[in-house]
């Protein structure tokens, strides 16, 4: 083991059934460094981390920790904690029925007795120093997702750990929260903690990290110092090919659309989108909703689709007034909606790829018109081929697919219904760059075919590449609409932030 390293993993291998998730991977973490672990979905980042934290047992290889003679074996998250490894996962891994304070301390206090007073005081101090807007005595389930994620981070930070693992912790945080997190990471780094940072956001990597390890298809590509690896090279290492597509995807269609109005909402509101909004989309147009997390962009599109209870407003489609109060009404009028949270609202995990693909069409066909097995298989095969979905067969349970492929299955589900208006809420979140570009291309292709698309993304450059018009949201209200020459990064940022001040 090298002198300055806190963690070394040598020749790690792990297989699930016949799939080799990790093959002979090395990883070294030095004292006081922030080390990005990069790779596409299915590259093996999560598996490597779960091996390290004892959630999975490795098939081969050795793990060394500073202060331990010889290789250590970590068999459970409990043991990992004791060895000084703390982890924040992408999904919230806290208990919603316990208080904020308890969630920060449970499972890591030594005594048999829970000292509530001490615990609450400690937690309150921690929450205050990190600026987390929650109270120690509050039940965690009543906090927002972002706050819950911050509590998870607070817990990990408070553990006096040597190794801190952050597995995509930023996907539910807004910019100011991300900034807070980065300050905290730099502070810990100064204290000599080694931090493993997994993220899909390249900007964030170049903002805080010192070193990058790239994985691809379960194998190690290499370890690089950040200054020696420009962005383009990083991306090509992750994808395993040179890629100039990044800026070149417009052209198959411009997504501006015709004058014909497909959908028009007048003072529409729902229980979630409380302040009424107006919205119009034209045939063949790609428009976007942008704004910070929690600005109400998802709530707006959910109201359009009838996913939340609609409380007021008028809707016209093709110039005729229609009534949409339930997703089924929207579907009947040719609207499709790909939800923001793929796992919670999108896939039906235990059902097969085939069943997931035909689901929406099946609902449209009605209760007494089941699609025959043969026809369903034909549809599934067609879209697996069209969208290049990587699956063993049409009968594979969709939950065993990687994130990007799950997303493609949901896309296939809506494309199969041949919608005239498709709403895509964060279709590229948490999926790899290759698939991202495929989805962006597909959006423009659909627009070229005369379909209208609403595209929502947290990444502004992605919106710039696909959308011809942007509705900017802030605090639940539409505060601006940008199109044509106004569509620049700076202009969008300043509109989101509230003017040029």
């Amino acid at each position, binding site marked *: 083991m090298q002198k300055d390293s806190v963690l070394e993993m040598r020749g790690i291998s792990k297989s699930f059934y016949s799939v080799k998730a990790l093959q002979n991977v090395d990883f070294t973490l030095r004292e006081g460094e922030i080390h990005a672990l990069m790779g596409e979905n299915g590259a093996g980042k999560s598996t490597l981390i779960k091996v390290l934290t004892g959630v999975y047992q490795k098939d081969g290889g050795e793990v060394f920790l500073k202060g331990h003679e010889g290789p250590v074996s970590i068999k459970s998250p409990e043991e990992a904690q004791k060895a000084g490894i703390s982890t924040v996962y992408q999904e919230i891994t806290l208990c919603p029925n316990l208080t904020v304070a308890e969630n920060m301390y449970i499972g890591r206090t030594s005594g048999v007795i829970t000292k509530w007073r001490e615990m609450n005081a400690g937690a309150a101090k921690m929450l205050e120093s990190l600026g987390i807007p929650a109270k120690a005595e509050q039940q965690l389930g009543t906090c927002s997702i972002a706050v819950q994620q911050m509590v998870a981070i607070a817990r990990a930070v408070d553990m006096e750990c040597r190794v801190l693992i952050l597995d995509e912790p930023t996907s539910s945080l807004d910019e100011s929260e991300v900034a807070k997190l980065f300050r905290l990471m730099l502070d810990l780094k100064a204290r000599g903690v080694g931090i493993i940072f997994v993220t899909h956001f390249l900007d964030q990597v170049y903002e805080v990290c010192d070193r990058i390890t790239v994985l691809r298809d379960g194998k190690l590509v290499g370890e690089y110092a950040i200054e020696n690896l420009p962005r383009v090279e990083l991306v090509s290492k992750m994808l395993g090919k040179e890629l100039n597509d990044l800026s070149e995807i417009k052209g198959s269609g411009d997504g501006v659309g015709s004058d014909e109005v497909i959908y028009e909402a007048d003072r529409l509101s729902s229980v979630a989108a409380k302040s009424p909004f107006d919205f119009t989309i034209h045939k063949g147009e790609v428009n976007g909703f942008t704004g910070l997390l929690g600005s109400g962009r998802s709530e707006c599109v959910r109201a359009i689709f009838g996913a939340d209870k609609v409380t007021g407003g008028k809707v016209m489609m093709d110039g005729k007034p229609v009534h949409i109060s339930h*997703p089924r009404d929207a579907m009947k009028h040719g609207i499709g909606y790909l939800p923001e949270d793929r796992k*919670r609202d999108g896939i039906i*995990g*235990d059902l097969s790829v085939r069943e997931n693909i035909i689901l929406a069409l*099946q*609902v449209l066909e009605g*209760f007494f018109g*089941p699609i025959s097995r043969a026809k369903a298989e034909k549809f599934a095969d067609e879209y697996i081929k069209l969208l290049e979905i990587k699956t063993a067969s049409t009968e594979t349970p969709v939950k065993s697919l990687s994130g990007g492929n799950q997303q493609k299955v949901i896309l296939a589900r809506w494309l199969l219904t041949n919608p005239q208006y498709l709403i895509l809420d964060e279709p590229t979140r948490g999926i790899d760059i290759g698939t991202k570009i495929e989805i962006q291309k597909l959006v423009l292709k659909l627009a070229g075919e005369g379909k209208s698309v609403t595209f929502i993304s947290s990444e502004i450059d992605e919106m710039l590449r696909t959308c011809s018009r942007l509705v900017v949201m802030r605090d639940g209200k539409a505060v601006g609409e940008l199109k044509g020459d106004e569509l620049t990064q700076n202009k969008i940022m300043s509109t989101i932030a509230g003017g040029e001040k």
Partner: protein
Amino acid sequence: MTAPGNVAGVQKLTGLFRKQIFIPIAALLVLIIFNLIADPSFFEITYAQNSAGEPVLSGYLITILDNASELAILAIGMTLVTAASGGQDISVGAAIAISGSVVLRVLCGDNPRPEEMQASILTAFLISCLVSMLFGAFNGTLVAYFNIQPMIATLILYTAGRSIAAWINNNRLPIISDPAFGYFGTFMPGIPVPTPIFIAIICMIITALVLKFTTLGLYTQAVGINPNSAKLNGINPSLIKFITYVIMGLCVAVAGFIKVTRFSTINYSVVALDIEMDAILAVALGGNALSGGKFSMASSILGAYVIQFLTTTLFKFNVSSSALPAYKAVVVIVLVVLSAPTVREKAGKVWRSIRSAKAGKEAA
């Protein structure tokens, strides 16, 4: 190293192991083999005279098929309820008491010992279907619209059901003397096979047709696995859950009808006692997750027959009816333990290591 053909064969075999229906089939095979060894006469079917003096088929196999009818019918409803709502209906025994009581009430009117029936059997059956579906709707409302866990919601009817059944007939025990009523629970004149077997088969055929010609199967599974996503695809999860409980009510009505026609009377406190436990067991033995989601109807129904097979086998070996549950419990635990994924995984590992050790030896 194994030959490629061998590998494919092994994969096919493990594929069969992983199939859900393997569990009840294996259990059934074990029971059959046990009986073959212990006493092959178990499988004999003979002609005997029934109480009406007609020749009918008799034998343990017939008993099993006959007595499992109610359970198989209940397993249909229980499977759907489990799949959609991720919980079980524990009120079916009590609800059977109600439906049976309704049948008798309609047929007897105010006189508990009527000379002739006050209404046609069909009318009585249809009214009892309606009442049972209403009680099913009550359970369904609590589960689907008030979001109460199924076991707890149905605890209400479980507690009150037999009391309601008694109240329907003013706490009297009506008896029907017309032999035509008994045809449904025993034998039709001239047909040597017990009628409940036919009723069960009809129910299964109807179920198969419903599952084939509607999307009920897909919808219940989708709702059971991920209600959020089901909703965003235009399915109404609450309505689907509600419907499964109403279907359960219908199954209860049919099972209740068989129960009362077997004896032409009813005993409110013991009729179909603990049958809900057997029905839930049938679903579990069929390899269905009691937490809902994917289901296999055929496996559940087969599970019901396995349970009856076991019961009849134990009776044959002179186990007293009050001690029967103890033996049943042991068998159930063995079955469930053997089919538990954790155990199967471990067994698989041991099996592989033995094989590789063998292969190693052969290579050396």
